[in-house]
């Protein structure tokens, strides 16, 4: 059926009908729907699920049952609309470049989603007899093989559930290895000032004291400072490589040698593995333990903040201390070593119930198979190429924090280019929202003033990179120009909401909806 356009104007009339100052009669904003909380949509006795009648009473639980449960329900169409409306208030990789440095926001292939939902993976109970889960165990075993081969490390613990959980696992392996060698008195962990916040937090979590290592003017670990701080009290160093300034640690092999000579272990934060996958094996650099964020390098979706997965690859010295469970092969096929005995006698313990983030393993393995050894190498090359391209295209209007030499997979700028403009890094970030992009990571790493850390990843086309660079160049010129700074100081103008009052949120925390929340307004 074609639409009858006879008599209907098919061209917009009048040039003056811009959106400036326009108000709809109801306060609505076209397709951007205002959406209340589910608690304000009524439905206290409503349900969107049809269930059979209950056939028995619960007299055996007399005195143990709750009086009532006051949570609202919605019918299926109402629920669908509620969540779809909310979804439209989110930025996403599938909408535009999402250049959060250190987060590796790359495309999430949908084949991976399809594979993870196959009944043989999704509808599988973690404690079924292993005779009925041979395919799942084979997948874990193959994933482990790929991770070990790509990193050049002999061991891997699959169970950690995110990067920070992997850090914890790695440090617990190190602690167990020191204790087994009578070196339990080593209680200090050296961490560069540029490190992710999770590194010092994890070290403190396992009871270690954190000492910072200085950084050189060119953004690397200061070897002399490292050497001075190493000693028989040091359990480990935690170094990110490529580091959080987006730079490869040129002296990495010497860092490892010094560390080992002092009897300490080298923990590498693998958050930035995407820059070197297929081109450099951390095992060749002298790394003893490194977590791999499957939700970064291996494309499993970030999902608005998880779930992630953080397997840890381990050197021969640390591998025996890996936590249970792990996959073993026996006479009857594959099995799981689930308790600290037999092959797993030295395991330091357990990171979580069951065997780790299987759903993420399936996705990551699908991603690995899709790329292959050749494609993964190309991933690193394109990720680094894209970042250097951004650095080159913006280097004359913004100030690269480390202008000399190439960067790796992320381009780091400081805020010297904003000196005297009255515009801050935060203002630039918020103005990017009006230009249709997610802001870069801002004010991190802490060692660079007003840091703007841009990680494009390899899944951006040249066209999208150019669009992004054009937008940032335009913003840079506007910031330095004599225009009204309202564009920046009051940005974003075009987002579903304007800048939010985070101080108010922290001073009087409202962390749950309550009937009086409504009454107070």
């Amino acid at each position, binding site marked *: 059926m074609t639409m009858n356009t006879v008599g209907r104007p098919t061209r917009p009339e009048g040039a003056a009908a811009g959106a400036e100052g326009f108000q709809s009669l109801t306060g609505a904003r076209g397709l951007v729907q205002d959406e209340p909380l589910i608690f304000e949509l009524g439905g206290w006795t409503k349900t969107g699920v049809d269930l059979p009648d209950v056939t028995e009473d619960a007299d055996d639980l007399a005195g143990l049952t709750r009086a009532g449960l006051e949570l609202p329900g919605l019918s299926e169409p109402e629920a669908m609309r509620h969540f779809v409306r909310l979804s439209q208030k989110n930025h996403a990789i599938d909408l535009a470049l999402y250049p959060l440095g250190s987060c590796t926001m790359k495309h999430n292939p949908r084949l991976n989603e*399809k594979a993870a939902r196959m009944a043989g993976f999704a509808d599988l109970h973690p404690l079924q007899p292993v005779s009925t889960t041979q395919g799942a165990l084979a997948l874990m075993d193959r994933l482990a093989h790929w991770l070990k081969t790509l990193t050049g490390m002999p061991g891997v613990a699959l169970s950690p559930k995110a990067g920070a959980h992997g850090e914890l696992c790695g440090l617990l392996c190190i602690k167990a290895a020191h204790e087994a060698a009578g070196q339990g008195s080593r209680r200090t962990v050296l961490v560069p000032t540029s490190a992710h916040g999770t590194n010092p937090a994890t070290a403190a979590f396992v009871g270690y004291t954190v000492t910072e290592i200085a950084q050189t003017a060119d953004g690397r670990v200061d070897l002399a400072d490292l050497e001075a701080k190493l000693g028989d009290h040091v359990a480990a160093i935690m170094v990110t490589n490529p580091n959080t300034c987006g730079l490869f640690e040129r002296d990495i092999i010497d860092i490892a040698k010094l560390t080992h000579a002092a009897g300490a272990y080298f923990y590498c934060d693998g958050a930035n593995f995407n820059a070197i996958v297929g081109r450099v094996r951390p095992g060749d650099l002298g790394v003893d333990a490194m977590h791999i964020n499957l939700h970064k390098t291996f494309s499993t*979706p970030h999902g608005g903040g998880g779930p992630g997965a953080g397997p840890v690859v381990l050197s021969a010295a640390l591998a025996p201390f890996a936590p249970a469970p792990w996959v073993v092969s026996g006479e009857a096929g594959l099995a799981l070593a689930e308790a600290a005995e037999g092959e797993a006698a030295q395991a330091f313990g357990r990171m979580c119930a069951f065997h780790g*983030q299987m759903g993420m393993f399936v996705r990551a393995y699908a991603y690995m198979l899709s790329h292959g050894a050749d494609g993964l190498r190309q991933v690193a090359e394109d990720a680094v190429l*894209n970042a250097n391209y951004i650095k080159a295209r913006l280097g004359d209007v913004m100030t690269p924090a480390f202008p000399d030499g190439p960067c790796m997979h992320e381009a780091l700028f400081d805020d010297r280019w904003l000196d005297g403009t009255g515009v801050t890094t935060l203002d630039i970030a918020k103005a990017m929202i009006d230009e249709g992009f997610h802001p870069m990571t801002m004010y*991190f790493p802490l060692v660079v003033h007003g840091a703007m850390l841009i990680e494009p990843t390899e899944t951006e086309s040249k066209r999208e990179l150019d669009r992004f660079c054009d937008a940032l160049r335009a913003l840079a010129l506007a910031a330095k120009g004599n225009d009204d700074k309202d564009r920046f100081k009051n940005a974003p103008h075009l987002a579903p909401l304007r800048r939010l009052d985070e101080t108010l949120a922290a001073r009087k925390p409202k962390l749950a909806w309550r009937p009086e929340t409504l009454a107070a307004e």
Partner: protein
Amino acid sequence: MRYLPLTADDRAEMLGVIGAPDIDALFADVPSAARLPGPVDLPRHAGELEVERELAGLAALNRAAGAGPFFCGAGAYRHHVPATVDHIIQRSEFLTSYTPYQPEIAQGTLQVLFEFQTQVAGLTGMDVANASMYDGSTACSEAVLMAKRVNRRGKAVLSGGLHPHYAATTQTIAHAEGMEIVRLPAAIDAEAAVIDAIDDQTACVVVQTPNVFGVVTDVTKIAEAAHARGALLIVVTTEAVSFGLLKSPGEMGADIAVAEGQSIGNALNYGGPYVGLFATREKLVRQMPGRLCGETVDADGQRGYVLTLSTREQHIRREKATSNICTNSGLCALAFTIHMTLLGGTGLQQLARINHARARELARAVAGAGLEVLTPRFFNEIAVRTKGPAAPLVERLAAQGILAGVPFSRLDPHAGLDDVLLLAATETTTSDDIAALAAALKAL
């Protein structure tokens, strides 16, 4: 490569803009000894069809839970998840977004987290909940560490009814923090023994209800005993559907309630990803681990949501953070919230009643087959005594196409409970399934 947009021409042109002769020049900082000359020894790239074929082949080597009678529980439960849930969580805006650091363009995720926190607080009967943890077991260990921060004591008492994986996880983490863990022996009705283990050094007591053997307990007396000694009560729940029927942890005096939320909205996934629920009293909120979403207003006074109280967190506090957690379980929390919104309070109560009814039918059938039911009061899971070790029995029934629950020895091989079998029933369990299990048990 279908996921890599750059063409050879693009790459050449971009290298020109950069002023680099070739791609190797961009890797100049890598020590030459560490540069791999070519791809590592792994297969080359493959098309979507080939990859899907390989993965389907692996999936086919597994026996899906839905392929026949199925009775596994012990911390992970097979429930029906409405199709709407999986559709919504696959929307690009939820699936491919990051932690909501820029609240102006993440209100979708943030409002869902606020709704999630409110639902979790309501289900557990607590004041406030966080925006999720990795899973129930890690939530449990974080709760123990939180108790130490609250009352500065170094000992935790774990009930013998606590899921052994939860106990092992908590032991691992708490030991690393220098805490002493008193793990009471595994026993069917273990909660009675907990009170005697509380002393003036006890930071917290951890009890699970329904416990790992399925036993439902009113822990009010334990709460009173703990509080009398200045200790906190942490209540663990591994089957979130039970919140629809049983007294909530808050109602029984819990200071911290943690739970595995997988049962609501999330598939079994061979153990993960799942979603940890974590709730507490208002006065303890600043000692809570994990992300928190709070309500505020924007520059125009419009209501909105932000991540808040981040001065507890690692990216601000670094080594002084309450936890090292960064990524949590956002998408699983979204699935939980959608399913919970579809159910509503009335739906969840009905679902819980159905689960309980299925388990009563199961208990009668198993008793009829000559097995002793050990769980005196249960929700949807029971422990039974088998004639001889349970593990080989489960293997034999698996060969007959029946996944007959979890032998307790799989969870704890040293408890001396090799003849204890854990059997769960949910709304997905049919009367035919139960009859098939009973017949197979009788025939053994």
